[in-house]
């Protein structure tokens, strides 16, 4: 049985890590990171069948996750460190000179847990499709996961990839979209409306589900459902409604915290809302 109380405590610590990392460097993307903290904690501490803390680039015999919207690197780094891929103390080097924790995730510095560089948007779904096909060629029955942003859906490559996966029945792939309706310049619906994303992916041959990305129990159920529906001839997408800045009241309900750092006072305010459950780095 999944211990949601424990997972929520982990997610709270992950949120503390996020705001502390971004504050320390006065640089980074807290909004989307906080919004995806529940998903990322659930994936890395419960759902994914992985060999953590062991890391092998090829990921044979385990599930593989790709972060396509690489700017939410703080949440990715936090869950990887908390899961033991690298020392938690290394989170203090986020975005610092000669760090393995680059502004956007990369394989270039050899950080365990990262299999692909991301940051320039729109590329992760293609990569995930490639990894999913490699798994099929290897006879590996594990799954491939990819998280994208909603604003990222404006990139044309996403739709090339969506067409491929739908046409070629990439059914060992589970894509997620962080549907927080916000991007740097403002609401997605103003910057460039996405229309009916569900209908669009369905038209490309995907099975699409909608769920709340900040309610772990529901999200967990949805992920399990997707695992059970894998290998049935269609790719799957979870449209995951989230709140940007979730967990820190003054960062919620606005796109303003997409890519700016809290000052000392704001950090203190944020941390007062997030219990230190696992111990700060």
């Amino acid at each position: 049985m999944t211990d949601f109380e424990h997972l929520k405590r982990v997610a709270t610590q992950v949120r503390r890590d996020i705001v502390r990392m971004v504050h320390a460097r006065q640089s980074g993307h807290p909004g989307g990171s906080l919004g995806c903290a529940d998903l990322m904690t659930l994936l890395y501490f419960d759902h994914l069948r992985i060999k953590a803390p062991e890391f092998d680039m090829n990921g044979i015999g385990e599930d593989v996750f790709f972060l396509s919207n690489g700017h939410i690197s703080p949440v990715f780094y936090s869950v990887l460190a908390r899961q033991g891929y690298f020392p938690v103390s290394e989170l203090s080097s986020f975005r610092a000179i000669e760090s393995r924790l680059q502004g956007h995730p990369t394989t270039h510095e050899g950080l365990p847990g990262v299999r692909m560089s991301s940051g320039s948007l729109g590329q992760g779904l293609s990569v995930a499709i490639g990894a999913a096909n490699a798994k099929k060629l290897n006879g590996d029955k594990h799954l491939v996961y990819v998280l994208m942003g909603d604003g990222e859906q404006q990139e044309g490559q996403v739709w090339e990839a969506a067409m491929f996966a739908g046409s070629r029945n990439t059914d060992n792939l589970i894509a997620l979209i962080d549907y927080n309706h916000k991007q740097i310049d403002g609401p997605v619906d103003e910057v460039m409306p996405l229309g009916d994303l569900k209908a669009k992916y369905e038209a490309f041959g995907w099975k699409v589900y909608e769920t709340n990305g900040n309610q772990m129990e529901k999200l967990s159920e949805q992920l399990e459902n997707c695992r059970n529906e894998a290998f049935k001839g269609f790719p799957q997408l979870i449209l995951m409604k989230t709140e940007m800045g979730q967990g820190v009241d003054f960062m919620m309900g606005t796109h303003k915290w997409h890519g700016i750092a809290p000052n000392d006072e704001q950090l203190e305010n944020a941390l007062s809302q997030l219990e230190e459950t696992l111990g700060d780095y």
Partner: protein
Amino acid sequence: MKFTIQNYKDTRSGFGDGLFELGQKNEKVVALCADLTGSMKMDAFAKAFPERFFQTGIAEANMMGIAAGMTIGGMIPFTGTFANFSTGRVYDQIRQSIAYSNKNVKICASHAGLTLGEDGATHQILEDIGLMRMLPGMTVVVPCDYNQTKAAVKAIAELDGPVYLRFGRPKVPNFTPEDQTFEIGKALVYREGSDVTLLATGHLVYEALQAAEQLENKGISAGVINVATIKPLDKNTILEAVEKTKCVVTAEEHQLFGGLGEAVATLLAQNTPYPMEMVAVKDQFGQSGTPQELMKLYQLDADAIVKAATKLVSRK
């Protein structure tokens, strides 16, 4: 070394035949193509190994991403499309998902340069070598004929890392040994000379050999080196030859900016800055025409190399 033309063959067929043989020997080799299977001569591979052949449709960005992803799991993906669509169209995908991520993808590009001919400048990329050699960690290979292309396909599969392999559409002299082994990073000395060194790449290597014959008749002793790997450049072989002749002509079917000529100029400037001439396209777009007409008009043939060498020797 004396070369004779065995036949006239397109280098893209060297790619297709090499890929097919590689597919038979190595089950990790997979191929991806963006709706140009016939033009890329990938049919044999596609037919023999359908489970390892991925038709992506006209979606090159996605093809590059899928190729990068397939390396995760140990595959050795070969992507196939025209040089224009293999580089400029997908530069950011190559930069982030392949080069920066250090993925073992082999980017195989046909119809490079002017000699794709009648399709014209939209397809005649002359900037691809420059684009690819600027990327950290990218190996850039440009073989000179059918036999060498076929050998190069096998060699790049053995190298762990991203590679750009450039070849072309027209039938060109096939003159190098059939059973050769391609050594990545090794420039091949085809002819010794004492007055001028001709450094050529791609099918201009044969033009350079012809130019050397003509120069000999004019009393100029020209050495010819096939620079089949542009990155990493074979510094020792080049500098050794240049030390004898004290001047260099480079020849390539590419823009002067970013190509072999600039790579060699950088090398010489940092070591022994002898005079140079560059046979290359001079900041122009191409146009429709036959390959022969275009090579003549843009001055990329043996006559152009002779002219450049003659001028250069008088400058020394």
